[in-house]
């Protein structure tokens, strides 16, 4: 017995060492490449660094952050970001899962579905934005307009009206990225041993029951990862929206990321822009931490 205990202790140390070894190289790379930029960003956010008014540059402490809290545009951007992110992630998950479940049932030619599904992702976001802007959604020129005029007799100004514009950019983002959820969930679903279903079927469990009690818990880790990843991407979405609406009309689609870009690179107020970027970082961290905890709580074997 004592021998077994010793080995277990040693085994644990071995394992910890081995684990650390596996993680070290990647961790080192990240440490080196992300720490400096983060420090720079923080440092800049504490300064007035406006290229168009260089005579005013200098340390200002938390001024930018205080100003941000009182900035209506900031809160608007935050609100839009929340709507945008939640909507697209939920849509991606639901559609992706549905598609994966469907396609899983098709043994033959599944490769074709997988291939077709990733085509939207393969298209560069900047091209996607341009495309949808003119060829799809532009009134009187775009395909959507052909469709709606034929079927509904009405022409919608998809990118010209604030609410429609928000719907449009959510649509574009979802269209492009759902395949990620699709593929990841497909791979996850496929790794569930069919025996489990057999056993359930023998026990006369219905389709919905099988789904709720077998499938869902087993793919939960994959679902959580999909949610976390897609949320992070949605929070920092840039190229497609920028190409499609530029944040407009007015500021109807100006999510926080775009607002930070505008502040830094157009208004040339890098100090304030950096503060906004830090704010976005904090929001992302908070959201991910919450999701992360949810994930952990789900319990792993």
């Amino acid at each position, binding site marked *: 017995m004592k021998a077994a205990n010793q080995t277990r202790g040693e085994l644990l140390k071995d394992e910890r060492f081995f684990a650390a070894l596996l993680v070290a190289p990647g961790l080192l790379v990240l440490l080196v490449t992300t720490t400096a930029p983060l420090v720079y960003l923080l440092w800049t956010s504490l300064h007035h660094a406006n290229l168009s008014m260089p*005579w005013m540059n200098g340390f200002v402490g938390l001024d930018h952050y205080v100003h941000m809290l009182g900035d209506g545009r900031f809160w608007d951007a935050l609100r839009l970001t929340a709507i945008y992110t939640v909507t697209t992630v939920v849509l991606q998950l639901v559609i992706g899962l549905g598609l994966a479940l469907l396609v899983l049932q098709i043994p033959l030619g599944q490769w074709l579905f997988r291939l077709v599904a990733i085509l939207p992702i393969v298209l560069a976001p900047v091209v996607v934005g341009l495309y949808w802007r003119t060829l799809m959604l532009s009134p009187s020129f775009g395909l959507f307009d052909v469709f709606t005029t034929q079927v509904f007799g009405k022409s919608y100004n998809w*990118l*010209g009206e604030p609410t429609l514009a928000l719907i449009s950019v959510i649509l574009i983002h979802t269209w492009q990225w759902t395949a990620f959820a699709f593929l990841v969930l497909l791979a996850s679903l496929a790794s569930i041993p069919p025996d489990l279903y057999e056993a359930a079927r023998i026990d006369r469990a219905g389709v919905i029951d099988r789904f709720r009690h077998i499938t869902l818990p087993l793919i939960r880790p994959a679902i959580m990862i999909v949610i976390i990843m897609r949320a992070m991407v949605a929070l920092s979405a840039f190229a497609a929206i920028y190409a499609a609406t530029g*944040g*407009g*009309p*007015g500021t109807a689609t100006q999510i926080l990321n775009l607002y930070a870009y505008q502040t830094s690179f*157009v208004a*040339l*107020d890098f100090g304030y822009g950096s503060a906004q970027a830090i704010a976005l970082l904090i929001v992302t961290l908070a959201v991910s931490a919450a999701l992360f905890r949810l994930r952990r709580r789900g319990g792993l074997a």
Partner: protein
Amino acid sequence: MLVRNSGSNITRRKLLGHSALAGAALAMPSILTTARPAGAQSLSASAFAKANIDWKQFKGEEITVGVIPAGYFNNLIDVVDTFEDLSGIKVHFDKIPPGQIRQKAMLDLSSKTGVYATHAADPMYYPLYVANNWVEPLDAYLADPKITDAAWFDYNDIPAGWRGSCSVGGKTYGIPYDGEATVQVYRKDVYEKAGINPAETLDQFVANAAKVHDPSNRLWAAALRGFRGAGQNMYIYPSIFREFGGEWYDSNKKLVVTTEPAIKALEWYADLLRRYAPPGVENWNWPDIADAFGQGTLATYIDAHNSAGVINDPQKSKVIGKIGYARWPKGPTGKRVTSIWTWSFPINAALPERRKKATWLFIQWSASKETQTATSYEFAGAYKRTDVNRTSLWQEPQYRKLMDSYGDNFVEAATASFRDDIDPDWRPLIPQWPAVGEIMATAVQAALVGQAKPKDALTAAQKQIDQATRS
């Protein structure tokens, strides 16, 4: 391929020895590239021998020039081997997407990395450049007989308004390479059928639009830029603003945008677009307008005169031969105000002295009458520039002949606009203009979309402008 030159900046590579190996292994693409179209152009070195300077005095230098993808720069790239032969200076071009070039240039200038010896600069950024001391004052270069033949170069041949847009406080900081003015562009046939003439006043412009507006037959009357941007819808609004008699500064030298003329101008703008423009116009930039006009769905627009090249492109346009041009309609003040736009070349202040002068030679060469000619009507390719920087060129018969082919009255409209309609106070020349311009652009678009009434949009903008210009 012209813009990717494998002989790049040696000093950077020196720092990493192994990159030379990597470079060799990765040089494979050069077999896929095509060399510059050899002998495509008839620009000879003898044309420049006339200039009384030693072109070869900075032999051996290498410079990188940042430009945007555009026909007028493509032509320059095609003829640059003449310059290289002439001067022994190697020129690399870097084509940067138009939405990124300002940021990239500023990143380079502000961090003093000296990557771009010169770049195609947006005139509204010069006050900013100068406030930060990023670019060289060029008057000394212009006056130095060793590097400039002033008589041959004839700097004053460039329209005064354009020269002014690249100057700050009367001092020159950039040399215009090309320039444009906004003019009315209309469908001759549509106007003839409706029995109208191009508008002389803003009111007439609206009246004309009412007469030809026919959306059920897919013909919309008029369009102006709506896309939000300091260089987009704010490229048109200032003209209307000034035509209504607007002044940017009040008696206390404060930037004010809530004046009566400002509101009236925005109301006119929003009203016109709402009633007579194709749906979606609030998101339209110049290419969208040109597309619509070329497809025959638009009767009139006011925009850059060198859109003539695009709407006369046989590959895309359906309305060749049906185009007419006119100057801006007059505002209530009786003024016509056109836009001022040039792509100009400044000199990066972070360069070593010798390279600065080498860059100057390049700039002088590209803005010279000979090169301007070679890239327009003497150019062997399909695209011939209409936006040359020389007023004297507009008098050349061959040039005029080419311009005439673009439509009725093109030459008169353009030259008159350059000569008479340029308003030095068209836009405020302050370093904060990029930010202010964006704020105004958002307000304009908000009004166009109906998100806010013009007066409210401008009031909101004023608050932000005060923030942005506080000192």
